[in-house]
């Protein structure tokens, strides 16, 4: 018997509403490794893919937020479990995409998985940190709680294809938002892999949607889409960010722009896409 067998090549697809479609446009683009070798043909998403992803995210948001914080934490933790069992595959892609040696890439994957666990822990703790009781001059019990903004558009950071992506998408998801993420244009495969893992970790369809493609083409659509409530501009330059923020202002979105050296333990991302709701409750006899 011959050992020869056909290559089973992988098609890198989008993640929209829990399904893995090709781009509606039928386009794809070539992704190369950091050294310029052919890596994959990724789906080149179109504005209609972005539209469909936003519709999916909007549809999933109420269900995701209505799940208990404990349950959301369990779901995100399960993503860490899934990533752990496929860590070698992730490391291989990170190494190729970012031009790392295998030790560094393994380290990056470990850091990413640990970060997922970190966000899993935050789901039922964020309300204590961002919310609380307020002293008021009157017979009222007054308290504030953080509510999710709704649908968040994420333009994922271009260089850090896995760790940056984890931060950008899980921070808004952990506080109850749903996300439409544009993966790194030149290094989309780790994000696609992570998207695949969400479908085996009890993420309801539509909570995380991943669109790969040309950032310059898709970002303005996402920024201008009126049914998106927040926009993370991590993956664009300051100048482009200004233009996108202006588009986002058309529908009064919350906009997040990372600091030049964003600290790993910064709560800015968790804070970025919440709305504070304050309730007055009568007390006394």
């Amino acid at each position, binding site marked *: 018997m011959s050992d020869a067998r056909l290559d089973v090549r992988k098609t890198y697809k989008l993640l929209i509403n829990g399904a893995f479609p090709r781009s509606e446009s039928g386009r794809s683009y070539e992704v190369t490794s950091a050294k310029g070798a052919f890596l994959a043909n990724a789906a080149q998403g179109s504005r209609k893919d972005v*539209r469909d992803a*936003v519709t999916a995210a*909007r549809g999933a948001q109420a269900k995701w937020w209505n799940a208990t914080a404990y349950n959301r934490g369990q779901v995100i933790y399960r993503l860490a479990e899934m990533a752990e069992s496929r860590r070698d595959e992730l490391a291989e892609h990170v190494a190729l995409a970012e031009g790392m040696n295998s030790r560094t890439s393994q380290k990056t994957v470990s850091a990413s998985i640990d970060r997922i666990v970190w966000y899993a822990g935050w789901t039922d703790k964020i309300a204590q940190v961002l919310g609380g009781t307020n002293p008021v001059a009157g017979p009222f019990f007054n308290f504030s709680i953080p509510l999710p903004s709704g649908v968040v558009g994420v333009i994922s950071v271009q260089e850090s294809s896995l760790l940056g992506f984890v931060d950008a998408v899980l921070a808004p998801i952990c506080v109850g938002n749903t996300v439409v993420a544009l993966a790194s244009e030149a290094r989309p495969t780790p994000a696609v892999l992570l998207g695949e893992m969400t479908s085996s970790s009890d993420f309801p369809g539509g909570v995380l949607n991943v669109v790969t493609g040309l950032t310059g083409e898709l970002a303005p*659509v996402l920024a*201008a*889409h*009126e*049914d998106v409530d927040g926009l993370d501009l991590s993956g664009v330059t300051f100048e482009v960010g200004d233009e996108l923020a202006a*588009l986002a202002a*058309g*529908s009064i979105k919350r906009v997040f722009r990372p600091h030049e050296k964003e600290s790993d333990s910064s709560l800015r991302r968790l804070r970025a896409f919440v709305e504070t709701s304050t309730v007055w409750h009568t007390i006394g006899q």
Partner: protein
Amino acid sequence: MTRRVASVDQVSTTPLRLVTVEDRNVQIASTIAVPVIETEAQLKALIVSLSGVDAVGAEARAAKLSTRSIKKSTKLAAIEMAISMIDLTTLEGADTPGRVTSLCTKAMRPDPRDLTVPSVAAVCVYPDLVAHARSVLGSSPVAVASVATAFPSGRASLKVKLMDVREAVSAGADEIDMVIDRGAFLSGRLGQVFDEVVAVKEACGHAHLKVILETGELVTYDNVRRASWVAMLGGADFIKTSTGKVTVNATLPNALVMLEAVRDFAETAGRTVGVKVAGGIRTSKDAIRYLVLVNETVGSTWLTPNLFRLGASSLLNDLLMQRLKQQRGAYVRADEFSGD
């Protein structure tokens, strides 16, 4: 007006005729010559003479036409045309006068911020709410349509059905949507179906009559074609696909078969009958597909609210959203417009 009994071979029903650009508009016979039906045997002979529908061809044709791309200014025009053809419908057990008031307000001015949006063609309500709808609509061009004849099942005696119609008309309905007796049709009692249409048409008086075939219950395309003819021979001003109350609603192939029946009827009998598609049409894309189908089957003559209607409720919001999207260049929120 000369009326005559059509002999069997006078009825032309070319299946799936290709329409070229030149003769896209149907040649409507110059004299009205609706065959006079005096006996059930005559009716059956005529109906049996209709050729069968090429089911695969009809589905392929409808699928092919639905891939046609309508963009930019054409899309904007199509959206506005679709809005003007809507029968804005609420047929729920939970309907209240308040709900009908908001429906009517929306019908008259679909987008309160933009007066260039046309009003819809009609509101469609249950008979007991006709008077209320009429009083809200006042002198606006929006018509009041009412379902009648024991909608949606049509299972009542003829006497009850006619009472239902007369009450709706006297309450101010401009249009009556009747349902045919599918039980009678499917068991071959075509004469009974025909007689009911004739009787309801008479009870309608000045009101327009739309006959609902409920294609989802007719099983085959041949039945859809036959039921279309029975309704048109009986005096229907419109034939309508569905009640919206069964699992299978309006589909493109069913609409195609009905449009062809309407075309053949116009060419042989000289009377133009409208088509209303209803049930399950929720997106602008769906609506535009029907407009393309109408244009390609019976021509632009039918692209008017007098001859083509879309029965829907949530469709209007999607049309308004798509219209705003065309104007603003960005996708808009679903809650931009009031819910139904």
